[in-house]
């Protein structure tokens, strides 16, 4: 199971990559494995406002459905349209082609301004061990 060092994580198993004013969001390898094959991803609309720790979509797998939480506050600027036809990208490449949406951050322009509840890779790895 992979937990890339350059990302931040939520307790709900999303990852977030911050590049200047933009955050890219997806779900973790651990989440994708736990869910099983993803069959449908409902994403927020472009232009929608999202709020950290609030649901903004859902991820349907063979066996279950999970809310998708935004890790950050801001406005959705882009969504991964490829997931419409190929939701399996979430399983195949959760940190790459399986990314879900991009957000223009509401506060500031960098890591220092991210919500305090986000986890470091080490903290997230610890969390996944606890839930194993």
């Amino acid at each position, binding site marked *: 199971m992979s937990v890339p060092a350059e990302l931040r994580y939520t307790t709900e198993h999303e990852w977030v990559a911050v590049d200047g004013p933009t955050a890219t969001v997806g779900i973790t390898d651990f989440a994708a494995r736990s869910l*099983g*094959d993803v*069959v*449908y991803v*409902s994403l927020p609309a472009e232009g929608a406002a999202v709020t950290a720790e609030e649901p903004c979509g*859902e991820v*349907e797998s*063979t*066996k279950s*459905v999970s809310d998708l939480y935004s890790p950050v506050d801001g406005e959705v600027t882009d969504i991964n349209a490829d997931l419409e036809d190929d939701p*399996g990208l979430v*399983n195949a490449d959760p940190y790459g082609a399986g990314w879900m949406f991009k957000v223009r951050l509401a506060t500031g322009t960098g890591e220092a301004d991210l919500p305090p509840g986000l986890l470091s890779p080490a903290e997230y790895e610890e969390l996944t061990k606890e839930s194993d």
Partner: protein
Amino acid sequence: MPLRYGSETAEHLAVRRAAGLFDLSHMGEIAVGGPDAAAALDHALTGQLSAVAPGRARYTMMCAEDGGVVDDLVVYRTGDQEFLVVANASNTAVVGAELRRRSAGFDARIDDQTDDYALVAIQGPEAAGILAPLTDVDLSALKYYAGRRGSVAGRPAWLARTGYTGEDGFEIFSGPDDAEPIWNALASAGKAAGVVPAGLAARDTLRLEAGMPLYGNELGPDVTPYDAGLGRVVKLEKPDGFVGAAALAERATAEPRKVLTGLTLTTRRVPRHGYAVLANGRECGIVTSGASSPTLGIPIAMVYLEPAAIRDPKPALAVDIRGRAEPADPTDLPFYRRSRA
């Protein structure tokens, strides 16, 4: 049995296109033997097992006095006076106890042999071709719902042409120590043909596409075989009656309380067990099983509906998927039927 070995979608599609291997050793096996074995089963179950020839199998049910389903079963007649009753894992103890109680006064032995059996299934269009070189049973002479004693990979087994996937396939009942060599031989012989190990998730979507009921979802104590559209398994004409016959005879002619129906959805969102079904916005039923169908590429569901919900004038149906009414179309079961060569 694990939920999945790798991707459950890939496992499902492998069974439809090539073959899958299933470890079903959790299933219950109860041997019923003796001079009155057939008569005892005729009394205990809804089917007429005395009419089943040795070497054949029958899908049947055990019902309570009120007609509710205790379990759905496959019963093999393994000999003139010998039967093997295969029960769902969670019901095996109840089925065994009921068989013992219901066979009082019959000269029949009831023996729960679940721990003496492992069960490996190979299912899919390539199953016969993979299995044939590994067994001394002539598969071309083994009909659907038939079984023979023989050897598989050199190990003794009861080999039956039965399954729960909607495909051609075989179930191999062996001693626990013989299951691993049998499994390995099938996996190795089937490698080139694309056989894969398949888990519980694939088993569930396969049986759902094939319109086969699952105990706990479509079947249970508050459901009669008639509700589930399986009145054919109830042999009311059996001369000596059986447990539940009076209640079932009443249900046979009465207006059904609910009707098991298939639904297909146009959304991508998945209807799931327990979600409400709406007719013109009013609750008219419940989803018992639902999935995104790997074969059809759309969401499908088995649902119980009030009979009016599928009568003319047909109302607009929808499934309440977490607060949003998603339009749905009724369809006959099964969703998938294999093409027979």
